[in-house]
Structures are given as C-alpha cells and as structure tokens.
C-alpha cells in the first residue's frame, strides 16, 4: 500500500522534472550566471565607475576608451554566461535523455528574447545618447520583465525572481548613486541564491 503511494510521488516528481525544461536549466546555471555577473560588475567598477561618476541622471559622454571598455565588459559577461548555461543545460539534458531542442525550449527562448532584446536596444540607445547612468537600473528592469514573461512556461519561482529583479531595478533608479551595488545584488547575489533554492528544492 505504502509502496504504491511512494511510487506515485516519485512518478509525479519525475514527470514534473521531465516536462519542464527550466528545472535542468535553472539551478547550477543561476549560480554560474550570478558569479559571472559579480565579476563583470567588479571589472566595470575598476575600469570605469571608480574614476568617473556616471551613476546619475546627468548626460555624460564617455571617452572612447571607456565606451569600448563598458561595451566589451557587457558583451563578454553576457556571452560567457550564455555559453556556460548552454553547456550546463546540454549536459543535464543528456543525463536525463531529453532532446535539447523541443517545443518547450523554443517557447522559453522566444518569450525571454522579446523583452530582453527590446531592453537591450533601449540601453544601447541610452548609452549612445550619453545616459550611461541609466543602464544599470534599466538592464535590471528588463531582465526582471523577461523572467516574469517566461515564468508562465516554467517554474513558478521564476515569477518571484522576476518581480524581485523589477523591484531592484526601480530601486536602483531611485537610489541611482548606489545602482552598481544594487545591480550586483540583483544579477549576482539574487541569481546565486535562486540557483541554490531551486537546486535543493527540485533535486
């Protein structure tokens, strides 16, 4: 009798894991992405924010060197995170014998991409127009909105994560002098904590 119910519970858990892609994507990926974000924030602080106070609503045109450095840090951080996430996910899905590219993956990627690309373009335009200070709050807000958007296709924890990121983004806009610290908390610390929570909850 007990055996049957234990089996039922096992079956339910297995089916939930197998059917939702992000379970294999979120735990370790969140931790890795968080760590890379922290390194990126530190590099940006050392190279740019330390010498120039651009964290404000003033219009400041960065020197060409600073502009290149900032874009470079952004691109390198983003690309390394994505590559490592893809690597971790492929490994995990292989272990579970799932196809890496299916309806679910496609849906998640499209829903992530729409707010992320819109936000990315807005940030690029702001940067070129000299509003570099607004980049940190805006990237947080759009990241949060992208997560909220994708949460309906995956774990409901993603909704809380998205809302936290949105809130931190708005907070960073209000307390713009502290936006680098808030950004590090949002992209670094919160992602890492989220990764550990999901990892322990769904193991």
């Amino acid at each position, binding site marked *: 009798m007990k055996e049957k119910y234990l089996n039922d*519970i096992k079956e339910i858990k297995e089916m939930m894991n*197998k*059917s939702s892609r992000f379970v294999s994507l979120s735990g370790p990926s969140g931790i890795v992405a968080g760590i890379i974000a922290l390194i990126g924030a530190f590099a940006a602080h050392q190279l740019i924010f330390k010498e120039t106070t651009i964290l404000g609503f003033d219009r400041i045109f960065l020197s060409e060197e600073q502009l290149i450095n900032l874009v470079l840090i952004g691109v390198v951080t983003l690309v390394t995170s994505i590559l490592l996430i893809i690597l971790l996910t492929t490994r995990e899905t292989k272990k579970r014998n799932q196809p890496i590219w*299916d309806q679910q993956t496609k849906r998640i990627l499209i829903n992530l991409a729409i707010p992320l690309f819109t936000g990315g373009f807005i940030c690029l335009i702001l940067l070129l127009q000299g509003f570099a200070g607004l980049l940190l709050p805006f990237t947080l807000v759009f990241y949060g909105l992208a997560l909220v958007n994708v949460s309906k*296709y995956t774990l409901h924890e993603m909704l809380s994560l998205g809302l936290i990121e949105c809130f931190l983004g708005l907070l960073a806009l209000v307390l713009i002098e502290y936006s680098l610290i808030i950004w590090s908390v949002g992209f670094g610390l919160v992602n890492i904590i989220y990764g550990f929570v999901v990892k322990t909850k769904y193991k």
Partner: protein
Amino acid sequence: MKELLNKLDKAFENRVRLGIMSALVVNDHLDFNALKDLLGVTDGNLASHLKSLEKSKYITYEKEFQDRKPNTKYFATQAGKVAFRNHINAIEQLLK
C-alpha cells in the same frame, strides 16, 4: 486512515492520468504529441485518459492549426490544479 483514503482523488488513481496532471501543472500548456512522448503511451490510450480528465473538468483544450495540421493544446484548469494539490497532500498524509 479511512478518512484519508477518501480524500484521494479517483481521477488520479491511474498512472497515465497522474502523469498528465503532473506535467500540466508545471507547464502553461502541452500539446498531444508532447504528452505522448513524455508518457510513452499509445495515441488511443492517451486520448481516452485525456477525455476522462476533461469530463472531471480538470483539464481543458484548445484546437488550432499548425502548418495545416490540427494541433490540440491541453491546459490544467484551476479546479484541476486544486484537486491535484489536494491529492498530493492526501498522499503525503498517508505516508506520514
């Protein structure tokens, strides 16, 4: 013990129906083929279990065309989600 057993939902007694519900509560929706792949059952078998869950109003569906082929998407209803949660709670009580 008997009271607890009564709390178990008959609709989820079957392994396939339990699987369908588990997959639908963590996904916004899944189509017929995705469910078939997940559960590893035949078309007819899956269809009959889907029908019975529909009858209990635990799931609902939407038909649409993809490249001129019919495609059916299945959703868990609010009632279905509540019933499933209650069922899991009852199992957990029994296992205590």
